[in-house]
C-alpha cells in the first residue's frame, strides 16, 4: 500500500507534465481544428480546415519548402558537425576538449532573438562582413548577405549545431580507438575507415542528432522571419498568421496538427531509410 503510494507520488510530476502541457493542449488543438466557422460565433464540425491545406497550393508548397530547407539544414549541420564532433571525441584532449564543448554551448547563453540579431549585424548590407570585404578590397560595393535563403540556412545551422554535436560526441566517444586502428591496419584508407567503421558505429548518434535538428528547424519561427527574404515562406509563419493576423484559430490548429503529423512521417521515413528504430537512437543518443 505504502509502496504503491510512493510510486504514484513519483509518477505524479510526469503525469501532470504530460497531461497538462502536452496531451490536453493537443486534444484542444485537435478539437479546434475540426470546427469550421459558418458565421460569427457559429461553428460546425468538419474537415474543411484540413482539406484547405491540400486544396491551396500555397499551403503545401510552403510546407514542402519548409521541410526541404529543414532537411538541407540538417544535412549541412551534420556535415559541419561531424568533423567537429570527431575532433572533440577522438583527437582533443583534456582542457581543449572542454573548451571546444563550451564553445558549442556558448551561443545558448543568449536568447534566440539576440543570436539572430547578431547574425543580422554581421550579414546586413552595412554590416561587418560586407564592410570587411570592402575594406580588404575584395569587392567594390556593399553586398547584402541578409534576406535570402542562404542567410536562413546559416541561422538554422548555427542554432542547431550543439544538438548535432552532443549526440555525435557521445557515440563517437564510445567507439574504441582500436577499431579505427584496425580499420587502417587492414588496409583501409581514411575514407574507407570513415565509411565502414566510424559512420556505421555513429549511426544512432547521427540519426538522433538529425531528428532533433530537423524538428528544431521545422519548428523555428524567428530565424526564417528575421533572416529570410521577401520570398521566404516558413510553415510556422503560416500558423502564426492564421492564429494572430487572420484570427482563424481553426485553420491554425489544423496546420499545427498537420505539421505534427507530417514531420512525424518524415522522421519515420528517415528512420526506415537508415534502418534505425526510435528506441535505439534515443536510447543511445
Amino acid at each position, binding site marked *: 500500500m505504502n509502496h504503491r503510494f510512493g510510486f504514484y507520488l513519483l509518477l505524479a510530476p510526469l503525469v501532470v507534465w504530460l497531461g497538462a502541457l502536452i496531451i490536453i493542449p493537443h486534444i484542444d488543438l485537435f478539437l479546434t481544428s475540426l470546427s469550421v466557422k459558418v458565421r460569427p460565433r457559429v461553428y460546425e464540425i468538419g474537415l474543411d480546415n484540413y482539406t484547405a491545406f491540400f486544396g491551396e497550393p500555397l499551403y503545401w508548397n510552403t510546407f514542402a519548402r519548409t521541410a526541404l530547407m529543414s532537411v538541407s539544414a540538417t544535412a549541412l549541420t551534420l556535415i559541419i558537425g561531424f568533423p567537429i564532433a570527431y575532433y572533440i571525441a577522438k583527437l582533443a584532449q583534456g582542457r581543449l576538449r572542454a573548451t571546444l564543448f563550451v564553445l558549442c554551448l556558448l551561443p545558448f547563453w543568449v536568447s534566440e532573438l539576440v543570436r539572430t540579431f547578431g547574425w543580422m549585424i554581421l550579414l546586413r548590407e552595412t554590416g561587418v562582413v560586407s564592410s570587411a570585404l570592402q575594406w580588404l578590397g575584395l569587392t567594390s560595393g556593399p553586398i547584402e548577405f541578409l534576406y535570402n535563403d542562404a542567410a536562413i540556412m546559416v541561422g538554422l545551422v548555427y542554432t542547431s549545431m550543439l544538438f548535432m554535436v552532443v549526440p555525435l560526441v557521445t557515440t563517437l566517444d564510445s567507439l*574504441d580507438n582500436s577499431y579505427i*586502428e584496425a580499420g*587502417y*591496419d*587492414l*588496409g*583501409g*584508407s581514411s575514407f574507407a575507415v570513415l565509411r565502414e*567503421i566510424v559512420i556505421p*558505429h555513429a549511426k544512432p548518434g547521427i540519426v538522433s542528432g538529425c531528428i532533433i535538428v530537423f524538428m528544431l528547424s521545422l519548428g523555428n519561427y524567428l530565424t526564417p522571419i528575421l533572416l529570410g527574404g521577401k520570398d521566404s515562406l516558413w510553415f510556422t509563419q503560416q500558423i502564426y498568421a492564421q492564429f494572430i493576423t487572420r484570427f482563424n484559430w481553426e485553420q491554425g490548429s489544423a496546420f499545427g496538427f498537420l505539421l505534427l503529423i507530417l514531420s512525424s512521417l518524415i522522421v519515420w521515413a528517415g528512420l526506415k531509410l537508415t534502418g534505425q528504430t526510435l528506441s535505439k537512437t534515443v536510447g543511445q543518443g
Partner: protein
Amino acid sequence: MRKTFAEFVAVDDVDLAIPSGSFFSILGPSGCGKTTLLRMIAGFLQPTSGDILIKGHSVLDVPPNKRAVNMVFQHLALFPMMNVAENVGYGLRRRGMPREDIAKKVEDALVRVGLPGSGTKRISQISGGQKQRVAIARCLVLDPDVLLLDEPLGALDLKLREHMKVELKKLQHEFETTFIYITHDQSEALVMSDRVAVMNAGRFEQVGPAQELYYQPKTIFVAEFVGDSNKWRGRVAAIDQNRVTVTTAQSGRISGVAAGPCSIGDDVEVFVRPEAVALSRDGSALQTMANHMDGEVVSVLFNGAASRLLVRARETGDEIDVALPQTGEFNDLQAGQSVSFGWSDAQTKCFVIG
C-alpha cells in the same frame, strides 16, 4: 631504433632481427615499451630515430594501411557492425578484390582457423575463442609479411588461454607467417615462441630461445622475471675458474657459477630455481652435491603438479622454495618434518650487482 615521448624514452636503442617465418615474442612487464615497439612496427607510431626493415626494405615511409603488417589487437577490435565474413573480408574489399574471390578466400581462411560456415554469424554470437580465431583469420587472409599480436589472450579465462596457446602455435606453423607476439605472461611467451626477447625499461635484456632464457639468463632482470627463483645476496669469497663461492649475509656459503666476469669481493645475487633443488629424507644421499643443507618443512603449498615446499635451513635460517617432486616419495610430507636438500653448483647462477 629509438622512440621518445617528450622527456620519456619508451624504447631505447632496440636492435633486433627476426627471421622470416618464426614465432617471436617480446616479454616484459607492463610499461616496458613493448606496445610502443609493436605500434612502431605496425606504423601507428614513427620511431624518433632508427629504421624498420621488412624483407630488406625500409617501411618508415609506408603508412599503416599500406604496410604488409597486420595486427591482432588486445581486445581484438572485431567490427561489431559486420558479421564474421564481412570482418574477415574487410581487408580484401579494401584491395578491390572481386566479390566472388573474396567470398572464396574468406571461407578458406575460416576453414583454416577451424570455423567453417560461421561467416554469417554476428560477432556478438560467437565465443571468446572463436573471436580470437576470427581476428587472426582477418589478418592472415591478407597474407601479411608479419603478424603482430598484442596480448590477445589476456581477456580469456585460464583454460581457454592454455588451449589457445597451442592453437596459435599451430596456426603460425600452418600459415608460415612471421608472428611477433607481445605479452607480460611468460608462459605464453615460453610455450609458443621460437625466440623470445625479454624487454625492460625500453631495452632488450636478452634475446634467445625459451630454454636459453630459462637456463642461462644473462641478467638479473631475466633471471628474476623468467620463472621463479630462490635468491640470495652475498659477496664473492673465492674463485676457481668460473666456479665461485659466495658468502651470504646469513654467513652461509653457496657454490655456483658466475654468469659473467667477477672478482673476489664483488657483491653478487645468487639465483637457484626451485625445481633444481633435490630433496631427501636422508641427509647422506645429497652429500655429493656442491650445496647441501638440512632443514625442516615450514609449509606445503599443494597445487598438483606445481606443488611447492617452503623449507627452512637449520644452520642459516634461510627459507627456500623447493618444487615438490611428484615421484610419490614425498606425498606424505608435512610441515615440521625434517628434510635434507641440495643442489649442484652448475644450477646456481651468480650475478654481479650493478
